[in-house]
């Protein structure tokens, strides 16, 4: 679960997203695209999650993690509000050795920056695009960034043209040979009377024939 862990509130959509990310071997992980916005700290696992932007604390301070006696605690459980000021109370299994003391100081130095907000739920902020909200468009660009996209110049022309969407879509399907021509229907094992072109009746109705070779198409 390294870093992502709102289990109780997960939706179907989130489940699918996780499956896609797990199966397709995306160039970058979803987790690299988000950061935690700390609220009351009840949903953030102190040691397990990367909630400070520097990797999970158990990996930054493995030594301290090993002697912590609250390895699974949430952020909210490791401190309390005293006179309106958040005071960290990290429980340890034993006293520190002298050489471990600087590590603890380092940890507290980092924790000093943290501002908990009582009454506000911990949330994610989407880092890509600078808008803080999740846009599918940005996510798409983000995950596609490391993958090679081969796009024909014909398509950028196609998307810029001023036709209505359905016509553009028909043309796109035609360019990709995805229209339900009789040849394609046969290939998909749909029964058709014959695979001959309905306009000239001489040749098979493939997309090439239909739009380019057919004698009727020549007239147009």
């Amino acid at each position, binding site marked *: 679960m390294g870093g992502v862990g709102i289990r109780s509130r997960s939706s179907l959509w989130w489940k699918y997203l996780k499956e896609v990310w797990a199966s397709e071997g995306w160039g970058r992980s979803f987790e690299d695209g988000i950061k935690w916005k700390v609220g009351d700290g009840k949903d953030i696992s102190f040691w397990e999650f990367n909630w400070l932007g520097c990797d999970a604390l158990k990996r930054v301070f493995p030594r301290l993690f090993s002697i912590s006696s609250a390895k699974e605690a949430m952020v909210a459980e490791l401190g309390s509000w005293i006179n309106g000021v958040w005071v960290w109370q990290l429980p340890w299994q034993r006293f520190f050795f002298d050489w471990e003391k600087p590590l603890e100081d380092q940890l507290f130095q980092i924790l000093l920056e943290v501002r908990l907000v009582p009454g506000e739920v911990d949330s994610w902020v989407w880092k890509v695009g600078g808008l803080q909200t999740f846009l599918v468009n940005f996510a798409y660009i983000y995950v596609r960034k490391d993958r090679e996209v081969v796009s024909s110049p*014909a398509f950028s022309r196609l998307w*810029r*043209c001023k036709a209505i969407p359905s016509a553009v879509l028909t*043309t796109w399907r035609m360019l990709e040979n995805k*229209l339900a021509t009789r040849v394609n229907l046969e290939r998909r094992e749909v029964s058709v009377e014959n695979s001959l072109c*309905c306009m000239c009746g001489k040749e098979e109705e493939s997309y*090439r024939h239909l739009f*380019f070779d057919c004698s009727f198409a020549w007239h147009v």
Partner: protein
Amino acid sequence: MFHIDPKSNFDQFRLSRSSDSVNVMWSTIWVGVVSEFWNHRNFIIFKRDVADASEVFALVQVNVWSWISVKIRSTSFSYSNWCLEPLVCMRMIS
């Protein structure tokens, strides 16, 4: 139309010296022809229509004119002008 790869046919359906906005018009016309052609083919199959190239051409003229006069605000030519002098009309669009 030429017998080559559809994508490059589409890509080459333009005038190399004309401006971007004119080439957008050419690609729109190409899309108009393809989509209307497909419509026509479906009419023939499902409504027992008869193949008629001049009807397809006329419908493409109407469709493309209506698309661009709605989508491009500066369009100021009438449908009859579009039919008579399409090249002049295309150049009028900025």
